[in-house]
């Protein structure tokens, strides 16, 4: 594709625009709904005639939502950190070492990833009640880590495999211990992979609804997606559409921030120049 004609550019531009519009319109619609007043909510206008912050005020006035937000952030962050740390170590071992049972480990982690989560809900519910971790942060963090780990291991081992092994040997020859070689040479190079994985795992934990609704029962550990489903209006007869829209917008923000923050660290081609290309 050395020469790109103008018509080809236009075609691609239109196609890209179409995809962007397709993806963004529902989001913008939710944003639009969240700014509408209760009276104009169903008028079908894309741009609200009357702008209002009431929906946002409302959701932040209810303890229910704020508490759920705290739960969500806490649970997702803790799960992400643990899954990424464990995943990094496991992926490093898988990509670098030859140990008995390596294939079994990879196979099992793939199996976990393929396992239908819904079939685990009832057993998990019983197990967690017996263990006394039902409706706690831990009760959600554990299954999240379980299902995020295969994802983390797969993504990270692909990244580790890209790092030339010679770099590690070189570090050892230069006088580094195994630990120093990992910390000073391998880890900085694996950083983009680690951040990519962190984003994926965070989004997985943040968006989960199935476990969150089955393994919680009170505000103590209920996460935002679940809290949203329990939203009611000020009275039983009021339609909570505006509030739900506002909440949906609010819970999208941490994801956007998270991605933007880590995206800077995802520099493509970080390993270029290490070896003859």
């Amino acid at each position, binding site marked *: 594709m050395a020469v790109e004609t103008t018509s080809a550019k236009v075609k691609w531009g239109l196609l890209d625009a179409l995809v962007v519009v397709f993806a963004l319109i529902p989001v913008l619609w939710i944003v639009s709904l969240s700014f509408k007043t209760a009276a104009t909510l169903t008028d079908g206008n894309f741009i609200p005639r009357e702008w209002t912050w009431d929906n946002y005020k409302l959701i932040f006035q209810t303890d229910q939502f704020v508490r759920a937000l705290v739960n969500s952030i806490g649970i997702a962050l803790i799960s992400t950190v643990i899954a990424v740390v464990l995943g990094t170590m496991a992926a490093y071992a898988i990509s670098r070492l030859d140990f008995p049972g390596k294939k079994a480990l990879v196979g099992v982690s793939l199996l976990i990833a393929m396992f239908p989560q819904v079939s685990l809900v009832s057993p998990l519910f019983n197990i967690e009640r017996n263990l006394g971790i039902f409706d706690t942060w831990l009760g959600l963090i554990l299954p999240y880590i379980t299902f995020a780990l295969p994802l983390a291991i797969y993504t990270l081992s692909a990244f580790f495999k890209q790092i030339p092994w010679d770099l590690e040997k*070189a570090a*050892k*020859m*230069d006088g580094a211990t195994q630990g120093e070689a990992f910390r000073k040479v391998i880890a900085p190079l694996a950083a983009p992979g680690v951040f990519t994985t962190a984003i994926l795992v965070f989004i997985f934990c943040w968006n989960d609804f199935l476990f969150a609704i089955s393994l919680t029962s009170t505000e103590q550990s209920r996460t935002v997606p679940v809290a949203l489903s329990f939203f009611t209006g000020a009275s039983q007869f009021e339609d909570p559409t505006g509030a739900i829209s506002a909440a949906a917008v609010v819970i999208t923000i941490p994801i956007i921030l998270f991605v933007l923050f880590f995206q800077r660290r995802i520099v493509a*081609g970080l390993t*270029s120049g*290490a*070896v*003859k290309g």
Partner: protein
Amino acid sequence: MADIVLDKVTKKYPDGTTAVHEIDLEIADGEFIILVGPSGCGKSTTLNMIAGLEDISSGELRIAGERVNDKAPKDRDIAMVFQSYALYPNMTVGENMAFPLKLAKMPKAEIDKKVAEAAKVLELTEYLNRKPANLSGGQRQRVAMGRAIVRSPKAFLMDEPLSNLDAKLRVQMRTQVSRLQKQLNTTTVYVTHDQTEAMTLGDRVVVMRGGYIQQVGDPQTLYDNPHNLFVAGFIGSPSMNFLPATVEESKLRTPLGDLPLGDRVRRALSGADAPRQVILGIRPEHFEDARLIEEHQRAKGFEFTAPVDLVESMGSDKYVYLTVEGEHAVAADLEDLAADAGGADLPPQDNLVTRLSAESRVRDGADARVWMNLDKIHLFDPRDGHNLTLHEGQAAGVNAA
């Protein structure tokens, strides 16, 4: 600076294959030694064992008199240059070179001084703040060298450091490596599969095949007195010509004709167990256009006529490929060589490669009258490949390091 001694060093992999068989090698302090051989000959494994990147299965490795079998690479105080360079892409050139010194907890001022010195030697001063990604292949290669020399280690190990460079740069870097080694006078073990590099760089060359050392010696000795068929065929480019020959009375029957046996050859074949079937080896430069041979020399050689297949004029001389009818020399060593070269580095089966002087008038398609120097022929035993024409003294010198 130190000497390195390999005492019956063996590498056996868990799957039962043995990559290196009981290698004995003494590398003197300050010596530049080359390990050369086709791929899979165990040269890189040997280097990695010296480095400590691979465990030694049995035998002993001593650096500066101290047994280092169980020492980690970082405690052996040796530096290594990798084929892939293995530069740290997240660090600048300066940081790359400073890395080993930082790990050694050297004071900052001293690190800067050493890096600056090394950069000056390697002409890298203006690139110190660049990342490896922004350097050319040759510059990256020099950074890799720089990272090795800043530490002033006991020894340098180089694993095919030039094989990623293009041909012209490789020749330049070859001289630079050679100069650098002489300047620093540090024991250096250099692995290559390129016999030209081996010949030009080393004080001594170790030819390896299948995990065994074939011959150790200075380049000229390897060239003039190869211990066996493998070394004879591996060292030299274009490589030595091999022809089947039969010993009969006082003659040597070859596809080129019946050669008279000189005293030297007669003595070599006088042993009771000397074979009747032998392989004749002769290097391309030991042929000459018969017209250009002076009378007094004529007697030392043998003249024959053969059709010319191809003439390659190099300017300084001519490579003339002669067609020779008849059987081919057959031996395990030769098969190995052919497999390694993929046929490319060896003369095509029916051809005899000769190097004639530029004044020769030999033409494609015509018959050429060619003279061959009988003083320079080698006879090999096809059964085990060993050189029958080696002098006693030379033969003895073969395995003594």
